[in-house]
């Protein structure tokens, strides 16, 4: 039977202009990978965001990281500072994965 391993799934929806900084942080704290869904739109505190026409100013991206508890908490610690003055949310959930060596 295939073994499953408990991890945290962190879903960060953030304005595109801040994506690079977030990804650099994610790698710096030791996450082995991430998935990026660009071209997502949405609405939040900072109003409606769905205009990819004009540079990245009104576009969001979704960054998904699967990581072990400990690395996950480092990401969570770093997030508020990086999101100050930027549109973005951080959503954490419990998941299980196969192929533990990937994480």
């Amino acid at each position: 039977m295939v073994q499953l391993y408990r991890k945290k799934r962190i879903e960060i929806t953030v304005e595109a202009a801040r994506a690079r900084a977030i990804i650099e942080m994610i790698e710096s704290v030791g996450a082995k990978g991430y998935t990026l869904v660009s071209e997502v739109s949405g609405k939040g505190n900072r109003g409606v965001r769905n205009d990819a026409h004009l540079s990245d100013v009104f576009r969001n991206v979704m960054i998904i990281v699967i990581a072990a508890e400990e690395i996950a908490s480092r990401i969570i610690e770093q997030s508020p500072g990086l999101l100050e003055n930027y549109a973005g949310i951080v959503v954490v959930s419990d998941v299980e994965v196969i192929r533990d060596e990937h994480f």
Partner: protein
Amino acid sequence: MDTLLQSALDNLISPMVLFFALGVVAGWLKSDLAIPEPISKGLALYLMLAIGFKGGVELASNGLGGTVVAAMALALALSFSMPLLAYALLRAATRLDVPNAAAVAAHYGSVSVVTFVAATGFLGYRSISYEGSVVAMLALMETPAIVTGLLLARRGMSEAAGNRAPLLSADVTREVILSSSVVLLIGSLLIGWMTGKDGMTVMAPAIVDPFKAVLAVFLLDMGLLVGRRLRDFRAVGWSLVAFGLYMPLLGAMVGLITAKAIGLSLGGMTLVAVLAASASYIVVPAAMRISLPQANPAIYVPLSLAVTFPFNLIVGIPLYYAAAQWIAGM
């Protein structure tokens, strides 16, 4: 020599402006008419490549006179200094705080490529030529204003404690200097200059004949963007909307005088006026979002895109042209 009113009217009923108007109306009425984003990005690249290449070919045929150097110096000077004027006016005449005033100021020191291209179209109708060096100015004016804007923000915000002083990181510097428009404009300019007439025979069927029609379609898309944002005025506020209308006039004036000073032709003067009058709504917003996040894009984007851009396109261009004729006639 056609009168101001005359050329203003001609401009108004040109396909270019009419397609723009169509877009504004459709956008305002929330029609689902939309140019797919990759297409409009593609059209923008087309316009920059075409304008750059033509400028280069023009440079090749007329050689690099002293004016070229003068023109480039002027471009840098204008882009670096205009934000100071804009910032002073904003702090005096509007309620904008430091970071927002600095961000808006940067936009007006930079330029709008589409406004410039539309102006070349306007001149084209009247078969009035312009120096290729003005295209180089277009490329050079895009970024310096960002530096001035960030310095202004820094000075003003340093007092306010706890504020991360806005820095122009190496990354961002590289990004704005290597931004799509700068690279494509300068690259095409060089290629046009190197290949000259022969190159033009190759490129002409694609970049000359259909140019104005493509511009018209692109302006339809711009109109849609503007129309959808007209409602954002509230966020902007009237004192700021006013700034979006008189700032271009001041800029154009500065542009005309300095352009005359370095001895540019009628066409060249008109285009420099347009450069000084126009405000960026792509490169600068992107840079501000990264380097000056305290400033609100819901203020500087609509101001530049929904106020100053249409004003320049419809009223400004014929006006600056008439003024250039008048000054040239002196």
